[in-house]
């Protein structure tokens, strides 16, 4: 019971276009974007985006929040690793949210960060569905925030 990533188009290997469906209270972890461009558009509901600074090399303290905003329906956002890291959440307890994401070049691994310590952890991202077909998850390792 967490948000789902649904691949719509893989643009001949040049980009990934996917739709994310967020239930009430669902949020991602803090993550980077593996040197890719990341565009996001809200199709339904609202999503809160919190930007974080990259942690210090051997950081061992709470991560620094840069800014936060609530993105409304039809609003767009952009991020890449030089801008920083972010967490995206549906903070509503009554409404679901849907967002459209474009990543170029496509990537299937990223780093997630523990807000309390700045420690990072590489994760592989999985799809709930691809081109309308449910993707059965084979791996039993921890899956992906985004």
């Amino acid at each position, binding site marked *: 019971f967490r948000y789902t990533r649904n691949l719509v188009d893989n643009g001949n290997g040049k980009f990934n276009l996917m739709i994310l469906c967020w239930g*009430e209270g669902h949020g991602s*972890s803090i993550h980077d974007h593996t040197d890719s461009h990341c565009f996001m558009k809200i199709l339904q509901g609202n999503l809160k985006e919190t930007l974080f600074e990259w942690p210090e090399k051997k950081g061992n303290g709470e991560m620094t929040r840069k800014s936060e905003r609530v993105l409304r329906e039809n609003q767009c956002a952009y991020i890449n690793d030089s801008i920083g890291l972010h967490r995206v959440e549906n903070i*509503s307890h*009554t409404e679901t949210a849907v967002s459209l994401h474009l990543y170029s070049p496509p990537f299937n691994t990223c780093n997630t960060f*523990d807000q309390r310590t700045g420690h990072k952890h590489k994760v592989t991202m999985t799809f709930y569905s691809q081109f309308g077909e449910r993707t059965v998850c084979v791996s039993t390792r921890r899956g992906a925030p985004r």
Partner: protein
Amino acid sequence: LPAGLSQWFPALEVLDVSGTGLTEMGTELLSLPCLHTLLAKNNRLGGPGSLPKELGQAPLARSLRVLNLSGNRFSEVPPALLQLRGLRSLSLGGNRLHGIPPDIQELHSLEFLYLGGNFITAIPPELAKLPSLRYLVLCDNKIQSIPPQLAQLHSLRSLSLHNNLLTYLPREILNLVHLEELSLRGNPLVVRFVRDLTYNPPSLQELAGRTVKTRNVPYTPSDLPESLVRYLSLASNCPNPKCGGVYFDSCVRQIKFVDFCGKYRLPLMHYLCSPECSSPYSSASQSSTSQSESDSEDEASVAAHRMQKVLLG
């Protein structure tokens, strides 16, 4: 709700009156025999007459499966709601609840319970008596501790606890075998090893009781006053599997950290019979961090197997 609803639509199965400004849903509901889904989110429900009192006797009590009352003004779970025996999914997200009634255990078919975004400060242990509960959402509340009994929720697959006031978790949480998702971000979880939190030295009665129990000193009810016989029957076993000790009232609360997949360290609360009681892994080393890590090794590997997606975030 309009009068005569059940006369016009006797076969009604799904009713969505969300966002209509309703302040109460009255007796019109009681005669809808086929209703299985009722969505009434984002209204002005919460006052005394919000749900009809006779709900328990209506056909609705057996037929209703899904009830969504999120985004209303409930300051307590309406007692009438607890009579909905067939309910599988309940959402009271974004209301003004300060607590969860112990009678929540009456909803014994409940699989999905969403209580995020309220002002809940504590969780009653009776919540653990829901045998089919698979998804429990308690995020964005004011919860300070989780009762260890919650580990009895054997069907639990997803537990959302983010944005609360938790400093530690009960170690029994590791017993949730089917738990796949756990969110804990936004809690003031203790990050450093904390030595014995509080320890009241045991009374003479406690010390004597411990000796009677651990050395199996024989006694019969005629040997002792009834109050002492009762006292001796309340001995708790020290949860440390390597220690055969017992305790009555005086126990040590100690926080130990458990690693998940070598990545996240969760502070878990252990109860031990005395400050000297610890697993044989800990040596005479005075280093607090090494003690916590070595003691946690065995638990960590077990936990890593069971918990697949820990979303500390």
